[in-house]
């Protein structure tokens, strides 16, 4: 019954382990498992340093997704799950992580993770997830001071971008670059709703717009959508983006343009911010004697 479509939305799943660190040298090993509605990440940290992680698509069963993500993160590390002192579950499926010691909301975890990823100067974090979009303000320790979240509507979420990748027949990881291969910046797609935006894009293609121009118009619409979220919460420097869309330069550059501010850059993987935050909360809890 599920309609077969070319899977342009499908992004690559992967795992990573530190080439230098050895788990036997760590005093406290903690983990964060972020079960999102679209993707899941498991992050293992030793004494607050990133040791290993995985990023994969969430399956229909949250506990199984959590186990798979953790197994894959630990693969080839020579370490087993029982060496982890404290596991924090976060994300939409946070209460369904069978081996977690505690569940913490992803808003708190993303702020903490962004603080680790981008440094203590971060005050505003935009997390663009698969099925939601969060604007978060935090202090120099990564503690949340205000937040706002949109999970009612797909506009401004990764899922909305996946729908467009499918419609245009463009692989999702190429969308960002292609959105700049245009003669001039087009007006943004005017419909906020993804369903109506899709119809509008189809119409533009029929009118003879090149594909890249349509992509640019949608990236701009998405940027505008999240801009209004940040505007409502109030912007304070420095600004950083986490989540899957942070990897889409087409949206990121246009958000920067609207906000008239540059987002902090990182070499690290923006999709693991939530799980990193979870692992760091785990460490704090162990140190406070609550683990």
């Amino acid at each position, binding site marked *: 019954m599920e309609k077969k479509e070319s899977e342009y939305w499908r992004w690559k799943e992967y795992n990573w382990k530190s080439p230098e660190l050895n788990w036997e040298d760590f005093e406290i090993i903690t983990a964060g498992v972020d079960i999102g509605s679209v993707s899941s990440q498991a992050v293992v940290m030793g004494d607050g340093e990133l040791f290993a992680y995985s990023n994969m698509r969430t399956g229909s069963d949250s506990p199984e997704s959590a186990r798979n993500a953790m197994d894959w993160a630990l693969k080839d590390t020579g370490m087993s799950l029982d060496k982890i002192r404290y596991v924090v579950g976060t994300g939409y499926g946070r209460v369904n992580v069978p081996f977690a010691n505690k569940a*913490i*909301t992803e*808003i*708190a975890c993303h702020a903490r993770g962004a603080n680790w990823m981008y440094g203590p100067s971060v005050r505003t974090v935009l997390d663009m997830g698969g099925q939601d979009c969060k604007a978060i303000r935090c202090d120099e320790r990564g*503690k*949340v*001071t*205000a*937040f*706002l*979240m*949109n*999970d*009612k*509507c797909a506009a401004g979420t990764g899922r909305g971008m996946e729908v467009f990748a499918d419609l245009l027949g463009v692989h999702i990881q190429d969308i960002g670059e292609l959105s700049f291969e245009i003669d001039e910046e087009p007006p943004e797609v005017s419909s*906020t709703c993804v369903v109506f935006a899709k119809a509008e894009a189809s119409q533009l293609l029929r009118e003879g717009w090149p594909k890249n121009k349509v992509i640019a118009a949608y990236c701009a619409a998405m940027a505008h959508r999240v801009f*209004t*979220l940040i505007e*409502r*919460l109030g912007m304070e420097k420095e600004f950083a983006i986490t989540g899957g869309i942070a990897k889409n330069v087409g949206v990121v550059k246009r958000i920067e343009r609207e906000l008239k501010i540059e987002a902090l850059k990182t070499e690290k993987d923006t999709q693991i911010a939530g799980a990193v935050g979870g692992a760091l*909360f785990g460490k*704090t*809890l162990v140190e*406070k004697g*609550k683990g």
Partner: protein
Amino acid sequence: MKANYGYKDGSGEYFITIDTDKCNCCEECVKVCPAGVLEMVPNDFDIEADDMPAVTEKERWKIKYTCAPCKPVDKESTPPCIEACKEDAIEHSW
């Protein structure tokens, strides 16, 4: 922390803001809400803190509709949740 629950749609912005720094966790707002929009949840943002009030996940998408009966046209009387809060920790954006 200012927690904003709600959404923005074609007709406007609908957010309930709860300032957890002002909130004394007395639970009165939860008790007086006739529509069950609020509930007490663990405070994940401050592990030491007591449970805090939050808008239930089910209501976050439709507070414009659910809160409508408490919104008088004259705008003079206050919705019960705001009225009940002695610390002025609750705000409605509309």
